[in-house]
C-alpha cells in the first residue's frame, strides 16, 4: 500500500511552520484585543484577556512580539515573493483564478501573484501598525510625541489594522478554498498533484532538486 502512495513534497520546513503559527496565534490575540479597544460593541472581547485594563496592558506587548516573529518569517519567505512578469499576466486572468480554471493561466512559481501581493500588503500593514502603535502606547511613549502625531497614529493604526484583518481573512479563506494547502502549513508537505496543479514552475524546480526554502 505504502509503496503505491506517491512521495510527498516538502513545502515548509519545521522552523517556518512553527514561526507561522506563532505569528498566527499572536495575530488572533491582537485582532481580538484590538477590536475590543476599537469598537464599543466588541468591548466584551476584552474579557478574554482579563478585562479592559489587561487588554490595554497586553495588546502592545503581544504586538511587539508578533512584529519580531513576523519579521523573521517575512525574511524567510521574502525572496520567493518578488513579482515577475508572468505574475502580472496571472493577475490579469483573475477571473480564471476565482473560477478555478487554472489551466488557462501562466505557470506559477513557489508563490502566485495573489500570495505575493498579499505578502507585500501584510508587510506594509505591520510596519504601519508597529510604528503607529508605538506612538499611541500611552504608558511608555505617547508623551514623547506631539498630540497631532498621536491623533494621526490612532487613525493609521485603525486603518492598517482593518486592512490587515481583511487581508488575513482572504489568506485564511484561500487556505480553505484551495484544498491541500492547510497541510503544507501543518505537516509541511503537499501532494505532487497539488504542486503540479497550483505551482507548476516550483514543482519542476523541486524535481530538479531545487525549490527549497
Amino acid at each position, binding site marked *: 500500500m505504502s509503496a503505491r502512495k506517491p512521495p510527498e513534497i516538502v513545502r515548509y520546513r519545521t522552523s517556518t511552520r512553527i514561526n507561522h503559527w506563532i505569528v498566527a496565534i499572536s495575530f488572533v490575540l491582537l485582532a481580538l484585543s484590538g477590536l475590543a*479597544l476599537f469598537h*464599543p460593541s466588541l468591548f466584551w472581547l476584552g474579557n478574554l484577556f482579563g478585562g479592559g*485594563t489587561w487588554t*490595554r496592558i497586553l495588546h502592545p506587548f503581544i504586538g511587539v512580539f508578533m512584529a519580531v516573529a513576523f519579521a523573521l518569517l517575512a525574511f524567510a519567505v521574502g525572496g520567493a515573493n518578488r513579482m515577475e512578469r508572468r505574475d502580472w499576466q496571472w493577475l490579469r486572468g483573475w477571473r480564471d483564478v476565482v473560477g478555478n480554471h487554472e489551466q488557462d493561466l501562466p505557470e506559477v512559481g513557489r508563490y502566485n501573484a495573489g500570495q505575493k501581493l498579499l505578502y507585500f500588503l501584510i508587510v506594509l500593514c505591520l510596519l504601519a501598525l508597529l510604528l503607529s502603535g508605538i506612538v499611541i502606547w500611552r504608558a511608555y511613549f505617547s508623551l514623547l510625541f506631539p498630540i497631532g502625531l498621536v491623533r494621526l497614529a490612532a487613525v493609521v493604526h*485603525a486603518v492598517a489594522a482593518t486592512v490587515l484583518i481583511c487581508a488575513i*481573512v482572504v489568506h485564511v479563506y484561500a487556505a480553505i478554498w484551495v*484544498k491541500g494547502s492547510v497541510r503544507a502549513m501543518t505537516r509541511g508537505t503537499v*501532494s505532487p498533484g497539488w504542486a503540479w*496543479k497550483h505551482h507548476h514552475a516550483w514543482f*519542476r524546480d523541486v524535481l530538479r532538486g531545487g525549490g527549497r526554502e
Partner: protein
Amino acid sequence: MALQSLDIVRRSATTTPSPQAREAHAGEVAKLIDVTKCIGCKACQVACMEWNDLRDEIGSCTGHYDNPADLSEHSWTLMRFSEHETAAGDLEWLIRKDGCMHCADPGCLKACPAPGAIVQYANGIVDFHEENCIGCGYCVTGCPFNVPRISKRDHKAYKCTLCSDRVAVGLEPACVKTCPTGAIVFGTKDDMKQHAAERIEDLKSRGFEHAGLYDPAGVGGTHVMYVLHHADQPQLYANLPAEPKISAMVGLWKGMSKPLALLAIAATAFAGFLHYIGIGPNEVDEDDEAAARREMEETR
C-alpha cells in the same frame, strides 16, 4: 465618583441609553472664571486639594509662577501666569485658572473606548469614573484642551470633576467657594452668561475694548467659561486655543472608521462564504496526481 446618577445624557463607548429619568430642570450649570478679577493667590488650587483630598508632589521652581508646573493626577486645577506687553507698552499679568472646560461636546468622551469611564450629566458636567477606566489615554488624545492626566501609579485618567459630588447636593465647587475676589462664580449657564455680559460691559467702559466671553462654539460651548480682557487673542492666556474643536483625526477615528471597518471585515468574510457556496473549492483530482507522477518519471 461612585454615587448613582440618574441624569446621564452621554456615556463613553455605550450604544444604549443611560439612566436619565432625572433632568436638569434648573438649567445646565457653568463655572465662570473672570480672569480680569483674578489676583493669582492660588486659593482655588488649595481648595481643590482640600475638598478632593489631593496632594501633589512638592516640586522645584521652574522659573515662573506656575506652581505646580503642570496639571497632574493630583493637581486638577492650576493658575497659569502669562506676561503680556500691550501695544501701549504696559505690562499685563494674565492669570488663567486652567483645568477641565467641561465641553458640551467632549473630545475625551468621544475617544474613550471603556464603557462608562466618562459620563456627561444632564447639568453639563463631564465626569471620569476611574473604576471603569482602562488607562489607554485615548481621552488625552481626544481632548482639545490638553487636560486629562494619566496617573503614573494606577494608570487611570484624572481631571477636574467640577466638584460633581458637591454640585449633586446643591453646593458650589470648592474653588468657587474659596475665591477671595469673586473671580470664580457658579450657577446656571444662562445666569453666568448674563453675569459675564455685565462684566464685559464694565470692562469695555474701562478701555478693554476687546473684552469678551470665552465659550467656544467649536466644542458646543463649555461649562467652564472665561471672561477675558483680550477675548480676540485667547492664546495670550497660556495658549488657550482660539478655536478649539475635536480634531478631524479623532472625528475620523471615532466616527466613520468604526462602522466602515467592521463592515469591511464582515464583507470580506461574506465574499469568501459566497465564493465557496457559489464556485466551490479548488481540489486536486486523480488526473492531476497522475499527470504529476508522469512528469516525475520523465524527469528521472
